[in-house]
């Protein structure tokens, strides 16, 4: 394995008295695609939110692309430039058009000229298959379209790593596929490192290099997807899979 792009070493985190992350160790290789699953409250979202410091870990080390996450604001901003994030509830900016949402980061953070940022934005809107929505406001789009805009917004920053925090769980069922299709395409056509918290097992089988199962703040099991789904080793993994796969 080459030098990991993300490395978690003995990461611990508490919410008050509640121990959410317990001694997490994880190495992610560049271009690796990881799906993280587990019951709700297992700490999977918290873990990926620690990677771009939306949450603070209290013990251990998180190193992203050679930079360790500390309280240093400059380092946090540097890491966030390289790490894109897609949220469950999209978190688009409702007062801006789709185009403005997409160009905000490139113009203000990467200091790109406006014309260049817009050209990039159009390219990615094309890629997520909604080029015609550029001048609309997020509120005028369907959930699936909004999530695709959110994916394009992250891509516009040209990140090395993409984090997906349950990207399809707030969507109406008929819109899940359009978002997953975009994500599959992204995984297959770019060499981007992806960490995805999701319960979409079809997606996991199709694109993941590794599936990680978490429970009670610990990584219980990790394996290649086929192995993971067909021969789960841990009892808790078996129980979880039996519950979501019916």
């Amino acid at each position, binding site marked *: 394995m080459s030098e990991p792009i993300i490395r978690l070493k003995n990461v611990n985190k508490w919410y008050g008295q509640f121990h959410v992350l317990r001694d997490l160790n994880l190495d992610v290789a560049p271009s690796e695609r990881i799906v993280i699953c587990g019951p709700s409250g297992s700490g999977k979202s918290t873990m990926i939110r620690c990677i771009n410091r939306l949450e603070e870990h209290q013990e251990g080390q998180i190193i992203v692309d050679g930079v360790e996450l500390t309280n240093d604001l400059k380092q946090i*901003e540097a890491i966030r430039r390289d790490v894109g994030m897609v949220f469950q509830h999209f978190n*688009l900016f409702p007062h801006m*058009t789709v185009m403005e949402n997409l160009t*905000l980061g490139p113009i203000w*953070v990467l200091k790109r000229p406006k014309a260049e940022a817009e050209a990039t934005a159009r390219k990615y809107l094309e890629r997520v298959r909604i080029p015609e929505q550029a001048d609309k406001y997020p*509120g005028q789009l369907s959930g699936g379209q909004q999530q695709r805009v959110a994916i394009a917004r992250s891509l516009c920053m040209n990140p090395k790593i993409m984090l997906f925090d349950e990207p399809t769980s707030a969507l109406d069922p008929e819109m899940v596929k359009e978002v997953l299709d975009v994500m599959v395409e992204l995984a297959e056509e770019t060499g981007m490192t992806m960490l995805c918290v999701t319960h979409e097992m079809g997606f996991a089988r199709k694109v993941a290099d590794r599936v990680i199962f978490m429970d009670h703040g610990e990584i219980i099991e990790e394996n290649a997807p086929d192995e993971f789904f067909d021969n789960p080793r841990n009892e808790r993994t078996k129980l979880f899979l039996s519950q979501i796969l019916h």
Partner: protein
Amino acid sequence: MDSAIPGTGRQPPRTETGPLGWIRSRLFSSPLNAILTILALWLLLMAIPALIDYLLVKPDFAATTAAQCRETGGYCWAFIREKHRLILFGIYPYDEQWRPLLASVILVVVIVCSCIRWFWKPFLGLLWVAALVAVGILMWGGILGLSYVENSRWGGLPLTLILSTFGIAFAFPFGLLLALGRRSHMPGVKAVCVVYIELIRGVPLVSLLFMSSVMLPLFLPEGFSIDKLLRAQIAIILFAAAYVAETVRGGLQAIPKGQYEGADSLGLSYWQQMRKIILPQALKIVIPPLVGIFISLFKDTSLVVIIGIFDLTQAAKAAVSDAVWRGFSTESYLFISVIYFIFCFSISRYSLSLERQLDQGQHR
């Protein structure tokens, strides 16, 4: 998308549309509403004819003296003819009163310009600088062949406009910073802001004005004085800023956490987040209460009366105290009420239109 197909469907029943339908549904939809409608009609019937009679029918428009006015009764227009310049410009030298008039017009024009979207460009700042310089020169004089008028002689409408314009212009950004400070994660900044806001909000404006005019000079070293008008202006700014801060804080709290996270995940710095993401949304939410603060600030400038500054209200009072025209306080106060109303109503209408403009396209 156009989902309605023309030519299909029945017309709604007659009673539901047209003027009759409107009257039924809006005025007499229930017994209580019918009573309220009739009550409102009765009030209008009582008030409007009486007002017209008082203002337009009864008075003798040709009257020129107080005696003539008293004879006919009704609104004494002669009083306004006689005193309007005192009320509008206070004790500013009579022959120079074109200067405050022009200054007021300039102020109103730049304020109106600032309200129009087309002007929201960098040169608006230059326009303001130019306008304020012009207002300063006109009011003080002393150069360009204008005689010098010290600001203790300023008064009336221009003074009210100056106090409220500067009041809003400084209280708003100051209040914004206070609101951000109060939500800051730095305990020191937060404590200072909380103490400031709570202290100021716990004190009436009148006492702040008193403090600024009576107590402040006691603390200043001998021979060092800040102009009385400036002190009043500062008191107004400090006062309004605390209210602006609390209102804006309300707006900030209404912004979902996801907006901060979305902005964070793009790597935007704190100030970029505030400027581009959080404040535009928060301020839009608080336009109505914010405008309420500005309107009350405009009216509260009349409290400077108590420290002897000659604003519009004080001028109206002075006009009544003339022995020859004694007893026409209704005329005087009605006159300034109309002036206050015109300004406040304009502000309020503008805020409505601004809300509507900002709302466009953002909702389905």
